[in-house]
């Protein structure tokens, strides 16, 4: 892992990506610790819709809250949702994809048909329904995004797992009589780390985007907690009054997605066997 980090850092776009993600994590941590310039929830009644200034770096919103502080907390919220949902989707999808490939036959059929159902189900609607059932909120967004991404991960894992299953080292393990658990974890899963890591970074970018979209539709994070999409949605009608309220969250979302995409790309380069061979 450390090696991956250092090669990421040597990769030109990987470095930019890591720096962006690093800054976002920093903002998120500071936001969580409450180390924001102002209280993100505090209403400064006399300072509504103030343009960016020395006191309020990114201005204030309609309720007179400091936009910069809210952005920091918003980053935390968006990152939290992105990481949590992708983590769940990765774990669930990986397990399903692995077992589907390994067991094959009827199980593969069943698992994959269920995944097909989820895939064929319009993603946003799936999210909408889940949210409508459980009520909007952080956890719901996490669940909704996770459910949407699980089948994608299952597919991403199943393909390579199927070909790994055919690989000689798996056959070799079978000639020793290695246990299923051992083969699944050490031979399949361990070798899936590379494609998974790449997929995870890309999924993080998508999750960030989806979270923003859901919040934009009023279905994601709920006030007063800020999230990037929510801030954007709230500022939508103020576009002409107070453009900064829109510009900063929009740029923040873009940069965040950019950060994940860049990292994902760099990882893909680094983990690509062809490049590896070239380096070796």
């Amino acid at each position: 892992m450390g090696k991956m980090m250092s090669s990421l850092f040597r990769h030109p776009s990987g470095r930019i990506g890591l720096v962006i993600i690093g800054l976002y994590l920093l903002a998120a941590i500071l936001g969580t610790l409450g180390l924001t310039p102002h209280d993100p929830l505090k209403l400064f009644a006399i300072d509504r819709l103030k343009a960016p200034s020395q006191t309020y770096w990114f201005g204030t919103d309609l309720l007179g809250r400091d936009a910069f502080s809210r952005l920091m907390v918003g980053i935390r919220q968006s990152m939290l949702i992105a990481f949590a949902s992708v983590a769940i989707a990765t774990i669930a999808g990986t397990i399903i994809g692995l077992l589907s490939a390994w067991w094959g036959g009827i199980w593969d059929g069943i698992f994959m048909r269920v995944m097909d159902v989820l895939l064929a189900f319009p993603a946003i609607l799936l999210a909408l329904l889940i949210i409508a059932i459980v009520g909007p909120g952080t956890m719901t967004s996490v669940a909704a995004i996770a459910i949407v991404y699980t089948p994608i991960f299952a597919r991403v894992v199943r393909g390579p797992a199927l070909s790994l299953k055919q690989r000689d080292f798996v056959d070799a393990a079978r000639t020793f009589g290695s246990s299923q658990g051992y083969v699944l974890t050490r031979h399949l899963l361990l070798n899936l780390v590379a494609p998974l890591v790449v997929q995870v970074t890309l999924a993080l970018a998508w999750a960030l985007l989806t979270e923003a979209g859901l919040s934009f539709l009023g279905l994601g994070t709920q006030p007063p907690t800020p999230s990037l999409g929510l801030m954007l949605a709230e500022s939508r009608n103020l576009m002409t009054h107070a453009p900064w309220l829109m510009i900063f969250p929009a740029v923040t979302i873009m940069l965040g997605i950019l950060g994940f995409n860049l990292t994902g790309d760099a990882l893909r380069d680094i983990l690509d066997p062809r490049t590896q061979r070239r380096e070796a």
Partner: protein
Amino acid sequence: MSYVVQRLLTFPLILLGVSILVFVAIRLVPGDAITAMLGTEAGLLTPVQRETLAAYFGIDQPIWAQYLRWLTGLFQGDLGISSIYGKPVLTVILERFPLTLQLSLMSMVIALSVGVPLGVLAASRNERPSDLVVRVLAMLGQSTPNFVVGILIIYVLSVFFGFVPAMGTFTPLFTDPLASIAQLIFPAITLGFAFAASVTRISRSAMLDVLSDDYVRTARSKGASPMSVIWHHALPNALIPVVTLSGVEFGYLLGGAVIVEQIFALPGLGRLVLDAITQRDYALVQGTVLFIAFNFLVVNLLVDLAYVALDPRIRIGRR
């Protein structure tokens, strides 16, 4: 073609799963057609009134009975009646579908006609300045949420040009092709923006892979010109990932683009189903979701068939 038949035979299974899922899910959502219609005034209804309405909306029976009734109807080609529109669900869907289809097609055309040439250009000038510019642009394009693009487009158009694309209703392509395309061009650009960026990146990397393949070297050893090497020998081999991406994106687009339809006030499938959910039009939600899922499956099948057309090596059914 028995593979196609085989695939088609899995459709009912998947659609059955989708239908059960949507049937149960939509009923788990609090509120029903009655509260959707009457809001808080629903509290003024007497029990008798409530039952009458429930019977009217077909939600008076236990859920499995409702499902059976719906399924029976389905087999007779009847998706039920929409409570919002008072028309057969299928009719309503088919009224909305042309817009969504046209919008999806236009976005895809934009994405492909911008993305593929850019990607090929970048790949053939690997690591040179033009490649870097294309890569940076594509990366940024991919990172821009489409609602941001849409809002900006409307804002710029209306503030600086005093113009907005027609909103509210849709002029079908056959009624007035120009007006129809003019109406959808900006939404299509909005949707095509990130899509084009993805296509650019995918075609670039696929081209790079292919350009180092042996048969490209063979073509060069025959004395084929650089143009011919790129377009005739390399590109057809690089198209598979582009087709995969386009197929997936197109499949999603056919499900309706809720946010863009909202911003541009377009009556497409996305808003249809959103409205159906908010107004608890169960039959419409079920019908639309099933329709979208069906389209998705068909598009996926077509993508698989496209692979075969693109790459004779691919034996259908073996993935």
